């Protein structure tokens, strides 16, 4: 698949994630794409349901079962998940047991990540088919959305009243260690050999409006300065 469509679908996942903010849920959103069509859109619903396992991926899975009651297993094997935050270990195992085709995610999940951050459940030695997980598509935006949520929630809590409000941090982001999620050759076959330096230097992928990767090589940058 052309990478610009990955970018396009990730943008859709962000729209879903933003709606979570309105109902005071942790803003993680996802879309599931089958034959180039979005077949499920979901956000995290752990607070609404009082159920700590109702992550966006589980909601999307329920939608797909409802839509394809007899063929959901075959459908999922040809489906790509776009999710704003790396799936946690639990969801990574769900997706693995469902034999999803590919996962594309925004920012790493540093506490619970199951596609490489803590464990790479997608690559475990198991009977079910492994899947490739592509990190870092709109990573900064995913972190910003989470920060926005925590700032909003903290300002509503009684404990913070009277305290100096913290500002939204917009410049500092933890770098992505690509080697946790992909080998360099996997990365280069996805993004092109010329972007190997993004992998080597743990840089953030930058896209133009059409979803083309536009990172400039370090040497070029020096010349234009």
């Amino acid at each position, binding site marked *: 698949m052309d990478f610009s469509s990955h970018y396009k679908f990730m943008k859709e996942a962000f729209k879903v994630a933003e709606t979570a903010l309105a109902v005071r849920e942790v803003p993680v959103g996802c879309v599931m794409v089958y034959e180039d069509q979005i077949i499920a859109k979901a956000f995290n619903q752990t607070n609404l349901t009082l159920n700590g396992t109702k992550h966006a991926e589980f909601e999307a899975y329920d939608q797909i079962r409802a839509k394809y009651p007899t063929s959901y297993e075959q459908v999922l094997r040809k489906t790509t998940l776009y999710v704003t935050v790396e799936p946690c270990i639990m969801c990574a195992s769900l997706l693995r047991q469902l034999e999803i085709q590919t996962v594309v995610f925004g920012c790493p999940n540093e506490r619970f990540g199951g596609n490489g951050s803590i464990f790479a459940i997608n690559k*475990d030695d198991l009977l079910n088919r492994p899947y490739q997980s592509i990190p870092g598509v709109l990573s900064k935006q995913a972190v910003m959305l989470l920060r926005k949520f925590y700032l909003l929630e903290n300002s509503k809590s009684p404990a913070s009243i009277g305290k100096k409000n913290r500002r939204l941090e917009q410049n500092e982001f933890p770098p992505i260690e690509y080697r946790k999620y992909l080998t360099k050759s996997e990365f280069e076959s996805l993004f092109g050999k010329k972007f190997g330096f993004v992998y080597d230097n743990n840089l953030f992928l930058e896209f133009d409006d059409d979803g083309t990767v536009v990172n400039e090589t370090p040497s070029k940058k020096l010349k234009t300065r």
Partner: protein
Amino acid sequence: MDYDIDYERFVFHGEFQRVQPQTSVEPLLVDHWVVWVLPKQSPVVNNIIKNEFKDTAASLRHLKRFVKTQSEEKDWLRVLLCSCELISKTDLENILFGPLEKNTIERVKIPLNKPFDKDLNTQWSSKYWPIVWKGNPMIQELNETYKRFDKTKITNYLRTISNMAKTAESLPIVTIFVDPETDRIMASQYDKRGPADKMKHSIMNCIDQIASDELKRRKQEPDPSKPTNYLCLNYHVYTTHEPCTMCAMALLHSRISRLVYLNESKKTGAIGIESGNGHMIHLSCSLNWKYESFRYIGTDVTVPEVGENINI
């Protein structure tokens, strides 16, 4: 109180094995500087340690600082100072010799980890450097856990799930969630996977049940006190077969405090040291939350095996 604990295999009452990594038995050796002084100079060297090497206090807490020895019919003290990586011998000499008379400095291998039993403590002490024995932290943890471990109650709950499993209509997999404060069973579920949903594992079904029960309750009688959303906080979970990664992690998200299971799942399990890919999920994100896990290794309570490739 007599503790029926096998400290080497972490087994309680001969029937319940606590699933945890084996404690290391190898010393972690690092070169340290040791200086020889006469006993009357000990206040001087103590001052030097306080002023120059106070950062080493934490990492060397388990070791003796001063060790008596004899040479040429004189009493001496060998004094442990600091890691050789911290300072060169020349710099060390500049600090020491002035306040102290010039004397021998040796390089000694020191174990930075604590041995886990008293025999090993004696061994390492004579081989490397004297270690202060204050009891094994792991033994203390096991003892504390043991005191909270009610064998009779636990065995009864295991019998409950065993009996349920034996009358199962399909897969003989059963889980119950127990609130240890009230001793009430809060959820009780079979594995319900089928063509409509292949992921209805018994643990997920229990978590779903507890959430929907509480959601109904809160709709009927709204509670203004804003109770916690961690509905399974500190619950005990009893299950017939070692859970898969998804279910093991769902228990962690739900913040349970203890899991007890009957049969191990060598291929698909995510708790046992050698199960599946060896993740030991219950301890894997321990900065955030962890729960203790026990495998039943007794013979009284049984449950049918299921296929080794089935994710439980």
